[in-house]
């Protein structure tokens, strides 16, 4: 998608901080986050909404930011991987991903953590099938998903829904 035409002002809250930026209306939210705001945690794996490595929370919904035109983010609240930890205190999921081997090469990890966070927000006590279903929009080529699912189950068992 080539963001040509006139730029417009778009305002939203990212990771608790109000931001106002000039952007092309049809520019991808992913590019805006990465290039203008320097939030490079969301990754581009496929650019067509298949792999989920660009996943962020938009008003609490899990979205692939490569499919969201910037204009759609106007007035929204966005949470990216950079907003998951509270300062140096890791989110429960981040800690269990470290403990259980949920992150290998790490490229899918930000998107998977956002998906897992969304899952626990909506279903604090998921079954294994819920976890598999909840993460099925995020591709991981390293782990075979076992240790990722265990990390999510472990975080849920701590009763911390983030």
């Amino acid at each position, binding site marked *: 998608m*080539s*963001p*040509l035409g006139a730029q417009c002002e778009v305002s939203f809250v990212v990771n608790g901080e109000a931001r106002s930026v000039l952007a092309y209306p049809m520019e991808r939210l992913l590019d805006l986050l*990465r*290039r203008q705001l320097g*939030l*490079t*945690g*969301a*990754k*581009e*794996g*496929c*650019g*067509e909404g*298949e*792999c989920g*490595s660009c996943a962020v929370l938009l008003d609490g919904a899990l979205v692939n930011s490569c499919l969201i035109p910037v204009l759609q983010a106007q007035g929204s609240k966005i949470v*990216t*991987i*950079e907003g*998951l*930890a509270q300062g140096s205190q*890791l989110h429960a999921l*981040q800690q269990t*991903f*470290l403990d*259980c*081997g949920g*992150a*290998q*090469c*790490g*490229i*899918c*990890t*930000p998107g998977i*953590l956002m998906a897992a966070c969304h899952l626990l927000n909506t279903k604090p006590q998921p079954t294994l099938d819920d*976890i*598999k*279903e909840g*993460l*099925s*929009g*995020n*591709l*991981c*080529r*390293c*782990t*075979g*998903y*076992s*240790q*990722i*699912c265990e990390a999510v189950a472990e975080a849920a068992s701590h009763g911390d829904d983030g």
Partner: protein
Amino acid sequence: MKAEQIVGVAVPRKEGQEKVTGRAQYVDDITLHGMLCGATVRSGIPRGKIKKITFGPGITWDEFVIVTAKDIPGKNCIALITDDQPCLADGVVNHPEEPILLLAHANRYVLPKAVEAVVIEYDPLPALFTIEESEQQAEIIWGTDNVFKRHQVEKGDVDRVWAKADYIVEGEYRTGAQEQLYIENNGMIASFDRQHGITVWGSMQCPYYVHKALMRLCDLPEDKVRVVQTETGGAFGGKEEYPSMIAAHAALLAMKSGKPVKIVYDRMEDMAATTKRHPSRTRHRTAVNREGKILGGEIEFVVDGGAYATLSSVVLSRGTIHAGGPYDWPNLRISAKAVATNAPPHGAFRGFGAPQSLFAMERHMDHIAGTVGVSPVEIRRRNFLKTGMTTTTGQTIREPIDLDQLLERGLALSDYRAKKERFEKENQRGTRKKAMGIATFLHGAGFTGSGERYLASVVGVEGCADGRVRVLVSSTEFGQGTKTVLCQIAAETLGLTYEDVQIAQPDTDEVPNSGPTVASRTVMVVGRLVQSAARGLQQTLIGLDLLRDRYSRDEFRAACAKYVAENGEFKSWAHYEAPPGIFWDDEKYRGEAYAAYAWAVYIAEVSVDLTSYSVTVDDFVALQEVGKVLHPVLARGQVAGGVAQGIGFALYEKVVWQGGRMQNSQMTNYIMPTSADLPPIRVYFEELGNVHGAFGAKGIGELPIDGPAPAIVNAIEDALGMRFDSIPLLSEDIFQAMTAGSAPRNESGTPQGFR
């Protein structure tokens, strides 16, 4: 010495915090001041002569940096094993993704249109797309006979076994191309100035491969080329060789423009243009006696190498040596070759030829079992290699491996016998057929034959001013846990804590050439060198009386800090030395092919739904002997991930070719397993140890992708009573076979129905 053990314990991943917080810097996360974006104009036809290049209308071409083969200062090739692959086509093209011309611009959004606007006219030449077409030699597209490399293994006297055989079992087996599908696409950034030369940063497995390629291409001395690995988002072999190509392109654009240039492929370009697993064809002809003992046989193994030699000769080598599986072959002839076609070069992918030839071997074992009338379990038992026997290359098995016992444990863990009996009853009715399938196999760790001797790897360990130490290796982290495990080894060797040991980011200005990060060699070969280099530090300090023979962690740190304060830099180097008594004959392909083998029994429980023809893997047991497990969580992760890729190789991942070009180069139409598709992958280890590896470790990275495909297809045959000898095996293939009455036969990497 401290009491706490570090090796064998699940210490935290060194770079884990950066990865879970999104702070880890992958190549596309890095922006340099004034940086341009680069793009590649590719051939689009499989073979032909370039007649004319025109820069079409509607583009302000003077804003673009344009590079052609004429801008290359040194030799126009990507140096690897054979210098046949050009960096940019000069006059002729040999595959449809061949790079011809490079463009760079400050605004990445204007690049796609400009790439489209470059018009290339050709005189097309006839092209070859399959192993068979290449063998028929209607056209000679490489060398004198379209063959990159041949290997021949001879053991005993095969020609005399046929007369003694009660059965002669024949089979032909095929495997398709497979995309590595690391989630981070390939990418590089290059900068150039006259004083420092070229620096590249990027996603890669082998910094010194890139270093060598750039020296040759740019005609620069060693110290004017610097290669730095950035955090790498998966590789699986797919970032072994092609990064040299992308680095070369970025470097040429940077040299011409005087500005830093970034080239990051999008998914379609990455899947279409970069290397994939070699498609293969294996033919078996085996002489067997009444009891099911193999008397001897012939194996013909052929891989499709694509348009250039790249790594095909060594992929072929590993595939050839693994072609006989973990079995005793008193007499055997293996004839193997890698042939040329007009597809993009195929390359390294986890397993490196072994998954192809082992798929054939393990399917063939089930056919032998069926012919002789014994069970798949029994046929394996009667042919397993045992301690003291020799492998296909005549290597004596010295370690106390007991494959009978390993198989028995696998059967118990998977509840094989009870389930098999139950499924046979239940399959009498209903539309869901269930079955169990077995694969037993081995995987050699480290480079094949004399490979490690030629590599002559070097490793450093540095004592720092604060008394801590740093590991200096070119071995790269791309998910497997290289950084973590090598730090564990250094810490355990020196009696330090895990936190006392750091590891340098691979940067050719700082780390020595420890060889490429491939071939399941890092823990076994590089790990052992880390151990030696660490001991060097220790011995220096003891020799200078700064440290006693027995010391505490604090004493080591104090002694190390004192040394650095008094003498400055404190580094210890270790150089690879081949283990004594190891012999390999490159001509005859005989001898010690690998310093160590890992052994495995994989068992798949599968169901086939006869209403949709879909296959589900319901349970998977992966049991392996990999020497000492240095990190239980990482080791389990390696196996589970490899099994998942193996399930994809068997049931999901089909590269659709047309005219040498991948037609489904997207994640929407090249399908890999998701979390919802996979069974519980149950991972178990036996730990026999290994005299050649650090703390008894063997290689582990590649082994797990060898077994799933044959285990699953063996189960499918058992469930349906139909023979399937080609993968990938998709629902539509099963549908076609069951409705047409015979199994589909794929051409090399060319799925039926797409040509």
